[in-house]
């Protein structure tokens, strides 16, 4: 049973949505550049997420990891559906 409350930062979520929207229609070098800028811009939030996930891994908390993994699923699904619709 997960005990960790894991919430991805809203600003990170917005940028993840932007990157998700770029998938499948953006050259790789632009994606890589976008990633590097994303990682630099959100260092503190990523660092906090690393600490939470490290704790989940140490405790073997599968449900917690699933909870963490699913956080941007909806925005990624919406981005994928928009891409599919053309």
């Amino acid at each position, binding site marked *: 049973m997960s005990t960790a409350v894991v919430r991805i930062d809203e600003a990170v979520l917005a940028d993840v949505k932007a990157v998700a929207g770029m998938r499948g229609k953006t050259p790789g070098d632009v994606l890589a550049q976008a990633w590097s800028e994303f990682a630099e811009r959100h260092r503190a939030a990523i660092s906090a997420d690393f600490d939470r996930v490290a704790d989940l891994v140490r405790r073997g908390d599968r449900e917690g990891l*699933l909870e963490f993994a699913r956080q941007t699923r909806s925005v990624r699904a919406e981005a994928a559906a928009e891409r599919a619709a053309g």
Partner: protein
Amino acid sequence: MSESHINTAVRGSYFLANYELRIAARCLEEDFGVSAATPIGDLLDHPIVKALIKDRATDPDAGKTIGPEAGEDTIRRLGYGHDHRGATWWDRTENVVWLCAYHRKHRSGAADDPFKKHFPELIAAKRMKPAAVDYEALFAERDERFVDLVQRDAQALLAEARREPGAEKRAVVGGEANVGCLVEVVETLEETYVAFFIEEVTYERFVILLNAFYVSRFEEWEQVRHMPHRAIDEASGEVCYRYLKE
């Protein structure tokens, strides 16, 4: 995809070597008349699902077009015997062939000929392609697979890289991420390079992936543009991180 999954049905997907076959939720509910949550394994004896597996196993974008040729948006015909007709779409970004629509009583030229009525109506209404609910289900299954496999796969890849320092080893990690790993030993320091492609690794998976190699703090990883033996392939969206361990 691990070899043990190839040519098997797991939940919503039928796995081939390089892509998956899935049935869109709208198609399941309205065309098959079953729940959107029906596993594809429950439908393997259905004629159009047999055709999906047989005809799309070697070429995901095979078949005549339904409507005009539209590049990567082209919808293609699927058929089984005289009666069963389907429409598929090859989703290159997600590596999925979607069965988007099905009609069980095809009669060419008849009033309900699906190529004249059902399929064009779905296209016109923008209901042919998979919707957000389809991607939610796909990503949910992939997230679960990733979490279940990532630790084991990452540690196996790290062990292989340690056995041959200086040589890059590659493996599919977490069911779908193509990851490169190289370990170099410099005096008392062990440098580990982990390279992956942004197209294949979501933000959450990035955090989980690096922690599957080393339970760590983000500050302990440094993004680098070169491995010892090659430049990172940024043109393909590759990203690499280095971890130093004493």
